[in-house]
Structure formats: structure tokens, C-alpha cells
């Protein structure tokens, strides 16, 4: 049973206060939706949780240990940022091969891509795809399955209805397997998740 918790988390960028007193706690099998307007610091929050930003006030605790003290913490989460981490001039196949090496895990991509109806584009260059298709492939990284936490930054942007439902289904499945999800969104989602905070 894992628990991720923040205590009085505040963050300043320069003189701007980006995050002010964020408190939440989330356990295995739960999903937290972080809502807020554009520029309200949702991405900053995810980057603090994924230990890229280290200058903040307050505490971020994973199983009651500060995330900067936990050496293994970095191997426990999977962050899908807003940039889709794809090389535009390479085909989907080659991009996925590069990810396989970085994530140190070989996936059966053909089956997974058929699920999203992308398999027929397998050898096409990424630059020829639409934004929604790129996002789908970017979210394909969620299939690497050694992680306890998912941090998703605006995962539903560009996705059509079918793919949105597929992603929600995937999140539910991950929750059932005791995974924890934190996702940001600035629109109303079709489904209610366990927890929600506004920042």
C-alpha cells in the first residue's frame, strides 16, 4: 500500500507564487484530478512530484519518506508530460524501439497499437500524424508496467471520444491493480475520479 502526500507545498518561481499551500494525500488504487486554470501551476506540481523541481517549501512524502531522500523513488513513477517525446523524422516503430531501450522493457507494440487503431501507421513518420495520434502514441508509454505511480499532464488534450474512453478504462484498470494516478486537466472529464483538487 503506497501513499503519496504533500504537506503545505508551496513553490515560487522568481517572485511569482505558483503553488500556495497544496495539501493532498492519495493512496494506492486512487486517482487524483488536479484542476486549475491555464498557468495555475498544474505542470509545476507534477514536476515537483516527479522530483525535477527541487526548490519548494513544504513536504512531499512517499510512504512517509521525503521524495528527495528516497533513492528508488525515481523508478516508481511514469511521467507523461505535454511534450510527446517523439522524434518527428522517425517512424513510430523506430520511436517505440528507442523508448523500449530507455525504459528497459520490451513491449509487444503491435497488439497494443491495434487497440488504438494505429497499427496501420506503424512504419509512417511521426511528422505525418495528427496531434491526436501523436498524443495516443505518447500515452503508449503507460504500457510499460513496472510503475506504481502515473503522473499525466493534460492527457485528454487532442484525444477523440473513443480514445478518451480507452484512456479512462486504462486508468481504471491501473487503479484496480493498486496503481496511483495523478492527472491534470482544465476541462470537465466525462467520468468522476476518486479525488479532485483545485489549484
Amino acid at each position: 500500500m503506497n501513499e503519496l502526500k504533500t504537506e503545505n507545498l508551496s513553490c515560487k518561481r522568481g517572485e511569482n507564487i505558483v503553488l500556495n499551500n497544496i495539501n493532498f494525500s492519495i493512496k494506492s488504487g486512487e486517482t487524483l484530478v488536479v484542476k486549475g486554470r491555464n498557468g495555475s501551476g498544474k505542470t509545476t506540481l507534477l514536476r515537483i512530484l516527479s522530483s525535477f523541481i527541487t526548490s519548494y517549501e513544504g513536504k512531499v512524502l512517499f510512504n512517509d519518506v521525503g521524495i528527495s531522500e528516497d533513492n528508488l523513488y525515481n523508478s516508481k513513477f511514469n511521467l507523461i508530460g505535454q511534450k510527446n517525446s517523439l522524434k518527428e523524422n522517425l517512424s513510430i516503430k523506430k520511436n517505440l524501439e528507442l523508448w523500449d531501450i530507455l525504459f528497459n522493457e520490451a513491449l509487444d507494440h503491435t497488439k497494443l497499437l491495434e487497440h488504438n487503431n494505429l497499427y496501420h501507421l506503424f512504419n509512417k513518420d511521426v511528422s505525418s500524424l495528427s496531434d491526436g495520434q501523436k498524443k495516443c502514441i505518447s500515452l503508449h508509454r503507460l504500457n510499460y508496467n513496472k510503475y506504481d505511480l502515473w503522473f499525466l499532464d493534460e492527457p485528454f488534450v487532442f484525444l477523440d471520444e473513443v480514445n478518451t474512453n480507452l484512456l479512462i478504462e486504462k486508468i481504471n484498470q491501473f487503479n484496480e491493480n493498486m496503481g496511483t494516478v495523478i492527472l491534470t486537466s482544465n476541462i470537465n472529464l466525462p467520468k468522476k475520479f476518486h479525488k479532485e483538487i483545485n489549484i
Partner: protein
Amino acid sequence: MSNLIKRDLLLSFYSSANFFFTVSFFILILMLIPFAFGTQTEQLKVLFRGVVWIALALSIIITVDRIYNADYEDGNLDIIMQKNKTIEYLIISKYITHWFIYCLPLLVILPLLSFLFYLDYLETTQIFINLFIGSFGMVFIANFVSALTLGARRTIFLKAIIMIPLFVPFIIFGSDAGSWPILLALSMLSFVISIYVTAYGLRLYGE
């Protein structure tokens, strides 16, 4: 660490055009020597020793965008930094791959080129040793400049302006056959500085 090296090598294999461009660029710069200065053997021999360093410096400058910038812009740098928590390992892997992909091919074709410029075995060996040692130092410098200028606009010119003054000592000692110990010292110094500065730059941009 080994995963990152493997991934970078595969990436450069997939976009191998870049690799051929660098090698061709290097050869073409050296090819300009006879066009610019005529074909007297003695003169060519002297000029080759110096221009080969200029060609190496320029080749490294045009590749500097591919060290961290490409990965930073498409978001892969986040994944790389997450998977390599010890940032020093990440940086050292980048040194190795950058040198391996962009400097090693130049060093491999160097003997061939130096015979075209009428240099004998001994002279070629001297140039090769100097270039081998100096190329590491230049790669270290290129890496930290790349990490420092991740968020900058109009970057290639700016990077050249930052890098060329730092390359000056290498070029001065590089063209002298006996100064390889000094080149080694310079390379080691730039390694020490580079590893700190690159880590600093990457951490800043990670935020």
C-alpha cells in the same frame, strides 16, 4: 547508463544522414585548402596541420545541437533524466556517444586525408595523437555549452561565439607535435569543469 548509450547509438543509426553530413563537412573543409592556397607540397603539409583543427572545431560546433537540444525540445530529456538519477552517469554517457558518433569517424578518415596532403606516417601519427586527445576536450566543452544553451533562441551562432574562445587553447597546442601532454591537461581540466557545468545546466532546465 548503458541503456542511454545504446539508445543514442541506435538513434544516430536511424538518422544516419547526420553522421554522413558531419564527415562530409569535415572532408570538404580540408578540400578547400588546395583550392585556397595552391598545391605546393610543403605549403599543404603546413596548412593541413592547422586547418584539420579548424575543421574539427567546426564539425563539433555544427553537431552541438544534437547533444541535448533535440531531446530537450521533444521531451525525451525528461525521460532520460528520470531514468538516470545520477546525473554524472548521464553526462558521461553523452560524452561517450557524442565522441563515438561524431569524432571517431573523423579520426578514422584522418590518416587517409593526411596522405592526400603528402604527410608521412610519423607526422600522421603525431597529428592523430593530438587530435585524438584534443577531440575529447572539445567534446567536453561542446557538451556543457549544449546544456547551458538549452533554452536559448538563435542558438547556433551564439554557441559558436561561446565555444570558439574555449577552443583556442586546443587549436594553439594541437598544431604543435610535441604538446600532447598539454592537450591532455587541457582535456582533463575541461572534463572537470564540464561535468559540473553540464549538471548545473541540466538541473536548471529540468525545473
